[in-house]
């Protein structure tokens, strides 16, 4: 079985400082994989490298055996990778419905069409309603996204992320800033929507990680120091020392 | 000063056009389409005042009564055409315009088309100041009459004077980069070539119109060329800034100009330009030549102390129109136009002028005026400086041939 996503000796330097120092990672199809690490370990940088926001200083990133490093974000997206953002990133002046629908259009092949009327595209509108149901926001469909609550916006963002039908989903701290009950709902939602897809998430909250992930990689100072199932990671001494030892109490 | 009686909206305009026909016997309305707002507004408003004052003077003599109404064209060809439509809807049959040959080109074209398409609502265009030669040559038409000497005639007169100065060997031409500036340059090259083949044109340059903040680099270039005189058709701010830069850089050569006076320019030139700046024009105010002319000028100054009667030809437009209406016995444009063709007229300042039938270009003596403060009765910008009549070129000498093939409506 080929890997859904594979990182080969990925490196990134800002000026003289090397932030990512040769990361190798292979994530299998259908796997829910979490990358954890202490603050400043380079999680966000790694995330932005995979999604094409930053360019690599060295190495390769492969999506289903195809090199994607060096491509523009929209090109990577078209190859089947979708992402969310750490800072809530929606289209605030458009309705919830429109937000989702924009996410659906490309994957259904409408691309840059300037002749189809979106209101008459049955497949688009059906899929949009489907996703709205999946994230439980049918009732809020006509509300401008900018006035939603924070948790709702995060849910909407996950909705937009999966709307394009990508089978590799990257989530950046999907539960950051949420209350406990909101977090539980979010985990349930993520579990539901990533069914049958590959998920890569960068997360800080241990509860989320251990509740969701099939596999966990630990990033410290730009290097993966351990990779394995949640149980293996829990028992790993190096991880304990580098990371859990100081962070686990919160 | 509100320029038009208040109407109750567009619907009223139709009513007005019906009403004006019955009133026509006594009062003839004239539409003044020129800028009345924006940067060129000052020149337009001053022109309107001169028209309205002249109308008052003529109205006192009895006969046809004139009413001059201003229509603001914001010096835009497009706005001029919109205003022309208003004028037509208001039932006015006589249009006067002068600022910018671009507007005049648009108007003469539009009026020609309108008269062809609407023979029952014809309009006559009396151009008092747009001097692009094309208007009475390849673009001439039956409905357009020009009362100012065109750029060729003025240059013809100017070069007569220059040609007499045997010491003059090198001339520089500087103008605004548009139709009028180009016409001036072409005329200068042509006439100087005919009259003084030995004279060298050391520079023939066009600068962007209205965009030059400081003419010093141009002056440096003129100076470096060794020119003994400068000919320019510049007007408005371009003339004022040019004179200013010439003074600052100590350029002491004679300036032969079309429009270096009034509207702030006379004041700006001041003492530095005495006996050095010359201007070519049709009428003169220093000396006023006749008592009748002096009275009009004095009356105008008393009414508008901050304005000068800058466009003497306006009095020709109005008196010749009055004469033509009387001669035709009707204010119908087609009859008035026919009466104007070939009409001979004695101007307020005593010159005899003739409306040439072949191209509707008024033939008249042209004067070279010099900027000075001696012997000035009517100064410019209340500065003490003004234009003194230095020499006169007769109408026959100033005349230029035309390529116009006038098509008269049958």
């Amino acid at each position: 079985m080929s890997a859904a996503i594979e990182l080969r000796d990925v490196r990134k330097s800002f000026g003289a400082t090397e932030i990512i120092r040769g990361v190798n990672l292979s994530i299998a199809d259908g796997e829910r994989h979490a990358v954890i690490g202490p603050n400043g370990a380079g999680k966000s940088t790694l995330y932005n490298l995979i999604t094409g926001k930053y360019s690599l200083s060295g190495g390769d990133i492969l999506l289903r055996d195809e090199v994607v490093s060096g491509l523009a974000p929209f090109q990577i997206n078209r190859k089947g990778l979708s992402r969310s953002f750490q800072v809530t990133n929606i289209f605030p002046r458009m309705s919830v419905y429109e937000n989702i629908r924009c996410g659906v259009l490309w994957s259904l092949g409408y691309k840059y069409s300037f002749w189809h009327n979106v209101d008459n595209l049955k497949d688009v509108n059906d899929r949009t309603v489907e996703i709205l149901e999946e994230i439980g926001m049918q009732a809020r469909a006509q509300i401008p996204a900018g006035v939603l609550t924070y948790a709702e916006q995060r849910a909407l963002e996950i909705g937009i992320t999966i709307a394009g039908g990508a089978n590799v989903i990257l989530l950046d701290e999907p539960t950051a800033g949420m209350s406990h009950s909101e977090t539980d709902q979010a985990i349930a939602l993520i579990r539901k929507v990533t069914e049958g897809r590959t998920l890569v998430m960068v997360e800080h909250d241990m509860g989320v990680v251990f509740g969701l992930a099939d596999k966990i990689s630990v990033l410290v100072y730009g290097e993966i120091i351990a990779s394995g199932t949640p149980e293996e990671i829990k028992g790993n001494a190096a991880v304990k020392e580098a990371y859990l030892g100081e962070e686990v109490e919160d | 000063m509100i320029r038009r009686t208040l109407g109750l909206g567009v619907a009223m305009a139709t009513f007005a056009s019906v009403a004006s026909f019955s009133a026509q016997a006594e009062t003839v309305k004239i539409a003044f389409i020129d800028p009345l707002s924006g940067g060129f507004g000052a020149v337009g408003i001053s022109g309107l005042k001169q028209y309205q004052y002249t109308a008052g003077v003529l109205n006192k003599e009895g006969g046809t009564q004139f009413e001059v109404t201003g229509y603001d064209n914001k010096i835009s060809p497009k706005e001029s055409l919109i205003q022309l439509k208003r004028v037509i809807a208001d039932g006015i049959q006589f249009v006067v315009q002068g600022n910018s040959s671009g507007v005049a080109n648009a108007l003469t074209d539009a009026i020609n088309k309108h008269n062809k398409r609407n023979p029952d609502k014809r309009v006559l265009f009396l151009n008092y100041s747009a001097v692009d030669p094309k208007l009475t040559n390849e673009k001439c038409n039956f409905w357009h009459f020009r009362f100012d000497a065109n750029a060729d005639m003025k240059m013809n007169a100017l070069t007569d004077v220059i040609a007499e100065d045997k010491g003059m060997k090198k001339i520089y031409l500087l103008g605004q980069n548009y139709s009028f500036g180009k016409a001036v340059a072409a005329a200068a090259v042509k006439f100087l070539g005919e009259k003084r083949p030995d004279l060298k044109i050391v520079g023939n340059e066009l600068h962007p119109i209205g965009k030059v903040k400081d003419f010093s680099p141009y002056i440096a270039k003129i100076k470096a060329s060794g020119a003994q005189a400068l000919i320019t058709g510049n007007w408005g701010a371009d003339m004022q800034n040019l004179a200013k830069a010439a003074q600052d850089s100590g350029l002491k050569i004679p300036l032969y100009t079309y429009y270096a006076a009034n509207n702030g320019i006379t004041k700006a030139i001041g003492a530095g330009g005495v006996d050095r700046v010359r201007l070519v024009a049709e009428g003169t105010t220093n000396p006023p030549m006749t008592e009748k002319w002096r009275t009009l000028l004095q009356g105008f100054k008393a009414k508008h102390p901050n304005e000068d009667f800058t466009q003497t030809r306006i009095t020709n437009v109005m008196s010749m129109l009055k004469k033509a209406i009387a001669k035709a016995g009707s204010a119908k444009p087609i009859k008035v136009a026919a009466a104007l063709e070939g009409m001979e007229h004695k101007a307020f300042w005593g010159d005899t002028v003739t409306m040439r039938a072949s191209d509707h270009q008024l033939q008249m003596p042209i004067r070279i005026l010099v900027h000075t403060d001696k012997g000035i009765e009517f100064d410019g910008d209340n500065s003490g400086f003004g234009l003194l009549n230095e020499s006169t070129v007769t109408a026959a000498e100033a005349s230029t041939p035309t390529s116009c093939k006038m098509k008269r409506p049958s």
Partner: protein
Amino acid sequence: MAELIIFSLLHGLVYGLLLFMLASGLTLIFSMMGVLNFAHASIYMLGAYVAYTISQYVGFWPGLIIAPVVVGLFGALVERYGLRHVHKYGHVAELIFTFGLAFLIEEFVQLIWGKQTVGYHEPAVLAVPLFEMYGQTFPAYKAFMLLVSVAIFIVLLVVLTRSRVGLIINAAITHPSMVSMLGHNVPMVFMGVFGVGSALAALAGVIAGPSLGTSPGMAVLLGPIVFVVIVVGGLGSLIGAFVASLLIGMMTTFAVAIDYSFGQFFMDVGLNMDPDGVLSDLYTVTIAQLGPIMPYMLLVLILIFRPTGLFGTREV
């Protein structure tokens, strides 16, 4: 030829430094507040008019000080009661507000001072030639303009690099996010910056008025060029603004002196072009005629190939 080069250099320097006085205020305002102030050139015009009125009563010299102060206060009030109100609608609204303000200032100037050029003149002591060379004179007033703008440049440089306030401003310019760390008095800082920027523009107007003519059209003539300067120089870079000002000043001045066209170039390399063809305008036009377009061509090229400008560190 030598005289043409020397005088073109001098005139280019005067014009370039005048541009710099305008550009420094504009770039200061943009860097601190993120507002591209379209009304900046209008404020420059206002400076000239206010100084003209003052000079009618007490002469030229007091106007040199009073007018910038008055206009600076006006700028501060505009910020306090206009711009700040629009701030919450975002930068586009702010930009459009200043666009409208430019329009309004021009109309009010016409209402108050009329549509014609007003007689604002240099003081008699400076209305003389400074020196003569090759029979051409250089007016003392232009030398004075040079002096004032160089002085302003030095003062700005010293204030921004040596004083405490300057260091804070400097930091804020290079790291806009730090503006909020200036403490709780951000609105006050904005008002001050806008006021000082306006005063700088007004000072440029005061000294340019007698030389370039004080008329309602003077803002429109200079406005777009100042944008070119700050974008080409690089936003937030005072040195960049200085270099770009001189570059554009020299470029437009020297262009005037060059009567060379592409047609001549083609002829020189042995190609004969039809002087009356449909496209003949393209190669008969001379560099001198292209002068006014050149800054804009430079602007477009810079934005395409180097959006940070020559010396800037961040994109426009």
